């Protein structure tokens, strides 16, 4: 297992991208690749934004931003159901649980397995296209395509 010491703000976006890819594949059988387009198209509607805080030897927050339909796709794939049958509250729950699991994997990849971290309960808000653009251009962000759906992951570390 990786027991490397913490390394704040080093390779943050690539570690997040790896955590997203690993967890989506293992839990929802969905495949993720880094977006080629310089300006990913998240559409004109507000997107879902899930956030989770972590507190340990390093502190910080992770965000996952995706079109509102993404939670339904994740729930459907995880549970082996048709996405049209997934209720809105379950879609919201699925995307929150996804970021919770990604956060665990991210902390293992980023900080090793010796430190203890406390995670917050994930929260769900919305983000406008303009806000997404600002976040996508910020350090610590990675935009991936998950089966034609753009997904933005963003992390901030406070030593």
């Amino acid at each position, binding site marked *: 297992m990786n027991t490397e010491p913490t390394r704040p703000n080093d390779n943050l976006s690539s570690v997040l991208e790896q955590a997203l890819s690993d967890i989506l594949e293992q839990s929802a059988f969905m495949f993720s690749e880094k977006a080629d387009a310089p300006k990913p198209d998240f559409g004109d509607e507000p997107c879902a934004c899930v956030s989770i805080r972590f507190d340990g030897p390093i502190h910080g927050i992770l965000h996952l931003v995706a079109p509102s339909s993404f939670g339904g796709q994740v729930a459907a794939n995880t549970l082996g159901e048709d996405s049209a049958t997934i209720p809105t509250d379950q879609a919201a729950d699925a995307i929150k649980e996804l970021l919770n699991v990604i956060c665990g994997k991210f902390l293992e990849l980023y900080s090793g397995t010796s*430190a203890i971290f406390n995670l917050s309960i994930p929260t769900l808000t919305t983000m406008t296209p303009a806000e997404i653009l600002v976040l996508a251009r910020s350090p610590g962000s990675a935009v991936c395509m998950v089966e034609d759906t753009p997904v933005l992951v963003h992390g901030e570390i406070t030593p």
Partner: protein
Amino acid sequence: MSYNILIVDDSTTARLFISKALQLSGADIGRAIQAKNGLEALEILRKEWIDLVFADINMPEMNGIEMVRSMRDDGLMKTIPVAIISTERSETRISELKAAGVRVFLNKPVTPEMLKRVVDTFLRPDVSPEHLKELG
């Protein structure tokens, strides 16, 4: 003989997935009862016959660590095996949980095969516990 399982997680998706995966695993499951947090789980444990608990750690109101400690302090609940299914990867915390009585620790996401091995090991006396070691 079928066994009653209690699934404790604040995520509906996680509870449904574990419930479905247990049914798919071929394990002999009677009822798969669900609770949203440790407090709800303790209420159910006082009223229902439960053979095995699968619990998350990070939950509102009462987390999985507090739930395990409450179970260990209760004469009737302390013998019920608990398997933690969590995003937790800290070796220190996993050791603490095992010292508090948690029998096995699984990282999310889990597979039906992993769940079946846990069920078989705790609830089927004909199955050796040796194969649990590789689950952690």
